[in-house]
């Protein structure tokens, strides 16, 4: 019966948005990749206590030595991984806490929304470095809580970037069309159904690129952890400098390693941005 058509139609994979999310490969693949990466990062990355170079440092009159530079690459990778771990964990905190802050800021109860607006503004406009020192001092002075430096960095990054995320969420929630709210009210949806089925599915995809940018920014701020004694990238550079009296190679290597991670990450975020703006049109 179908042979009446002269040319056979090429089989085109149909885009079926009505499939459930766990049946869609374009959702599932990044999700599985992310969770595997996450598990590896948490489980497999251990924070080294020391970064020791095994090679003898070149003498002081050599300003730059390539052998020494390449020799330190494995140590640098270790440092970057520690930072990546703290960043990813911290950003998980930020995503969740940021949503709570966004809700707190846009609620109609004044005694909730005003203090949360103040807290968000306060955290946003003060340096992360001082905040890290503050958290460290606070947790030391409270009895019964002892956090490792990486945990302090995670928490500090999480709280700092939660405020940024909350602004992004707020913009996303405000960008949901007013008719959608009215329709949800007209359909007599409860608050939970309204948020999970109507508002969040429309608000969050719009802010994904912004969140991605903040993830990259959080990674760029992660080396600050050296101030609370996190044994990360900058700690590696400082330690090599202290032990071998050579400053150029470790710091330049730290910069190179940083760019190698953050440039591809920024590129990925831009691709995401393009794709989402394409889907929205």
């Amino acid at each position, binding site marked *: 019966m179908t042979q009446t058509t002269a040319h056979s139609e090429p089989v085109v994979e149909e885009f079926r948005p009505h499939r459930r999310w766990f049946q869609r490969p374009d959702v599932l693949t990044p999700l599985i990749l992310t969770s595997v990466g996450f598990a590896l990062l948490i489980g497999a990355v251990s924070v080294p206590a020391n970064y020791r170079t095994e090679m003898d440092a070149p003498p002081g009159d050599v300003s730059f030595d390539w052998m020494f530079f390449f020799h330190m690459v494995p140590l640098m990778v270790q440092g970057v991984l520690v930072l990546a771990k703290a960043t990813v964990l911290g950003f998980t905190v930020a995503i969740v806490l940021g949503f709570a802050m966004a809700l707190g800021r846009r609620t109609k109860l004044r005694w909730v929304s005003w203090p949360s607006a103040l807290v968000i503004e306060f955290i946003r*406009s003060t340096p992360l470095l001082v905040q890290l020192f503050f958290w460290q001092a606070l947790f030391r002075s409270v009895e019964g809580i002892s956090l490792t430096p990486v945990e302090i960095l995670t928490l500090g990054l999480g709280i700092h970037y939660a405020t940024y995320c909350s602004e992004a969420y707020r913009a996303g929630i405000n960008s949901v069309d007013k008719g959608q709210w009215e329709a949800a009210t007209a359909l007599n949806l409860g608050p939970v159904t309204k948020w999970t089925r109507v508002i969040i599915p429309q608000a969050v995809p719009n802010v994904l690129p912004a969140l991605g940018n903040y993830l990259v920014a959080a990674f760029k701020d992660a080396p600050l952890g050296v*101030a609370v004694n996190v044994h990360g990238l900058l700690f590696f550079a400082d330690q090599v400098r202290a032990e071998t009296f050579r400053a150029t190679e470790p710091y330049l290597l730290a910069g190179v390693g*940083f760019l190698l991670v953050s440039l591809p990450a920024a590129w990925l975020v831009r691709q995401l941005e393009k794709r989402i703006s394409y889907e929205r049109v």
Partner: protein
Amino acid sequence: MESWLLTGSQYMLLLRGALVTLQILGLAFVVGIVLSLVVGIARLSERTWIRGVALGFVEFARGISSIILLFIVAIAIPILLGVPQENLILLATLALGINMGGYGAEIIRGAIQSVPKGQAEASISLNLTSLQRLRHVILPQAMTVILPPMGNLTIEILKGTALVSLIGLTDVMQMARNIRQQQLADAVGNLPILYLNVLVLYFILAQVINLIFRLAERLMEKRYEGGPALTTEELERMRPTSAEGTVS
């Protein structure tokens, strides 16, 4: 827990640190603005290689962490080039300025692109040189788009200045640590409260910057808003009295 405030002399120390912070912020702002203007305009150049260099700079400045850039510029580069590392403030300023320039260039590029194309075409037809076009036509109109994100960026740089305490400059943060040493020696004081005061100081500085930029925006709007329409009387006065004039 004792009082939430510090003593007067400690506040004086913090303010003295704030002067250093503001000095670094001001210098970095100047470097950053110049860099972002140059690079932002270069990113719209007609020549490919200029665009390429500008793009490279932007990607570098935005991709690298400001603290690592600070360590490279302030410690590694002087040793590498054999330059004496004397003026730490200048080196720190340079690093923060480069960082700001990367972000600022994108702001300026976006703002220039947001000016309607007809304006550029009109100024070409008026025979303005490209510099005049930029200075008198494009940039004033782009200014309203530039100012708000530039204010946010300046606050980011203010936050960035806290990093210079790690390379040994005595800004607010370093001053706080000095005060802590003093407190430890006297066996008084509470560390979280000290840092909370420092945070409040930074918050106030950020709000001041915010206010300055709001004022600048207001001034800019006032300056470039259309003047009041001419009254009929003025219109009458301007109308060429051609009817009578040519006869006599």
